[in-house]
């Protein structure tokens, strides 16, 4: 399986990249290529022009401060995962990244690329949405920030304009008194999950003040649900079961070759209870 022929641009500045993207209606950005290249090899994608941004300067940063984590478009998953600052400021980013494919794929794949690839089976789009992060993009109209909840418009479709390049992702810091957890189930180690769930739980004076969960591979877009009401009392088995039911009521699990909708629903329920428990424990440690 080989890709179809395409034109190739290797811009050296962001302006050149934007210009190249604007020059053809069927142009596509290549960063890590760990999703795009297999799609092209399988001929599920056949862009006419590849704009290879791997050689643009100044886009491989991974920084963390009190406000949150900023990840440049050319930072590889492995670089982000290796950052102790990222783990400290927003541990959910690191927890999720450890589940992204295999180390070899993480050496090449980029976190920002994964985010704008907008695959509902991928970890980082869901985490960005759950944490209320954002993506900075640059296009012919200049630079703008797209909030995560305005980023995912349809399966495998982001709200980036055709000539826009995502240059940075921002994940807000974990506030004091909040905890996070992530868990996913896949058929084989490193595969796409059949179901993955992350949770952020905020605790104040022993009470849960906010509980949200994000779901990957359950629906065809990354999905976040608010489960605060279910955990507003005490966090016990009954409350967790209520939360899992409440979550499921807002999800529409789908069937595919990997799992039936019923099995996905089961996994979503079980994982919801697990990650809420773990995030609640984590919040009380913080």
């Amino acid at each position: 399986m080989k890709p179809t022929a395409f034109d190739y641009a290797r811009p050296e500045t962001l302006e050149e990249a934007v210009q190249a993207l604007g020059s053809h209606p069927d142009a596509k950005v290549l960063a890590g290529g760990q999703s795009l290249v297999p799609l092209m090899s399988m001929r599920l994608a056949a862009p006419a022009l590849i704009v290879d941004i791997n050689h643009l300067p100044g886009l491989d940063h991974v920084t963390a401060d009190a406000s949150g984590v900023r990840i440049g478009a050319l930072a590889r998953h492995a670089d982000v995962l290796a950052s102790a600052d990222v783990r400290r400021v927003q541990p959910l980013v690191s927890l999720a990244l450890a589940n992204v494919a295999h180390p070899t794929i993480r050496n090449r794949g980029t976190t920002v690329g994964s985010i704008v690839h907008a695959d509902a089976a991928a970890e980082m789009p869901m985490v960005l949405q759950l944490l209320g992060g954002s993506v900075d993009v640059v296009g012919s109209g200049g630079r703008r920030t797209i909030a995560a909840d305005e980023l995912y418009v349809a399966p495998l479709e982001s709200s980036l304009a055709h000539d826009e390049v995502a240059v940075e992702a921002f994940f807000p810091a974990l506030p004091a008194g909040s905890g996070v957890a992530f868990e996913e189930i896949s058929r084989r180690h490193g595969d796409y999950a059949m179901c993955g769930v992350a949770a952020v739980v905020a605790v104040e004076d022993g009470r849960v003040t906010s509980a949200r969960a994000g779901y990957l591979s359950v629906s065809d877009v990354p999905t976040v649900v608010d489960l605060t009401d279910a955990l507003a009392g005490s966090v016990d088995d009954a409350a967790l079961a209520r939360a899992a039911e409440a979550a499921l009521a807002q999800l529409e699990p789908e069937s595919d070759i990997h799992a039936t909708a019923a099995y996905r629903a089961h996994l979503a329920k079980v994982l919801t209870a697990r990650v809420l428990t773990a995030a609640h424990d984590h919040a009380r440690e913080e």
Partner: protein
Amino acid sequence: MAENTAEKIHDVRLEVNGVTHAVAVPARRLLSDALRQECGLTGTHVGCEHGVCGACTVLVDGRPVRSCLMFAVTAAGSEITTVEGLAEPDGSLNPAQQAFRECHGLQCGFCTPGFLTTVTAGIKENPCPTHEEAREMVAGNLCRCTGYQNIVKAVERAAEIARGDAPAAGPPDGDDGGLEAATGDTEVARKDDASTTGLGA
């Protein structure tokens, strides 16, 4: 289905195992194919060609990367190491290669180039992998012959050889603390062997 109408050819300089290869390739030429066809380095094997099997793994600037998920044109400017570039300058086996031979970490050998590149980089990054970390190190590489037991042993053995602290012959034998004492003679022989091949340094 391929459109052969005047596909543009790019002149690309690939740095592979310390040698510059000036190649002329279409943009869609995968790095795996360029290594095999243009550079004549057929040690890099092509298995699934969509990033799952790991047979085509090479080192790009020292890190394991799937060469089937990179275009040759984008690899220009990077230093690439294939399985052919793993042996020491004098031709002796590097610790990963030596360990795979000692531990019988291969049968048909198709997947082996990908394992060797992955493990060579893996034990540099983590010189003392636990059993779990050794398994994780090769979790992205498929082998259809061995059942992985000897491959994981080879990872642990490769780390030992690279550290230079465990000259026991044969595969590591679980947590048998008596192994080194029991193979004292072999130990000496191995050390001599290492000094003549330059691997002991």
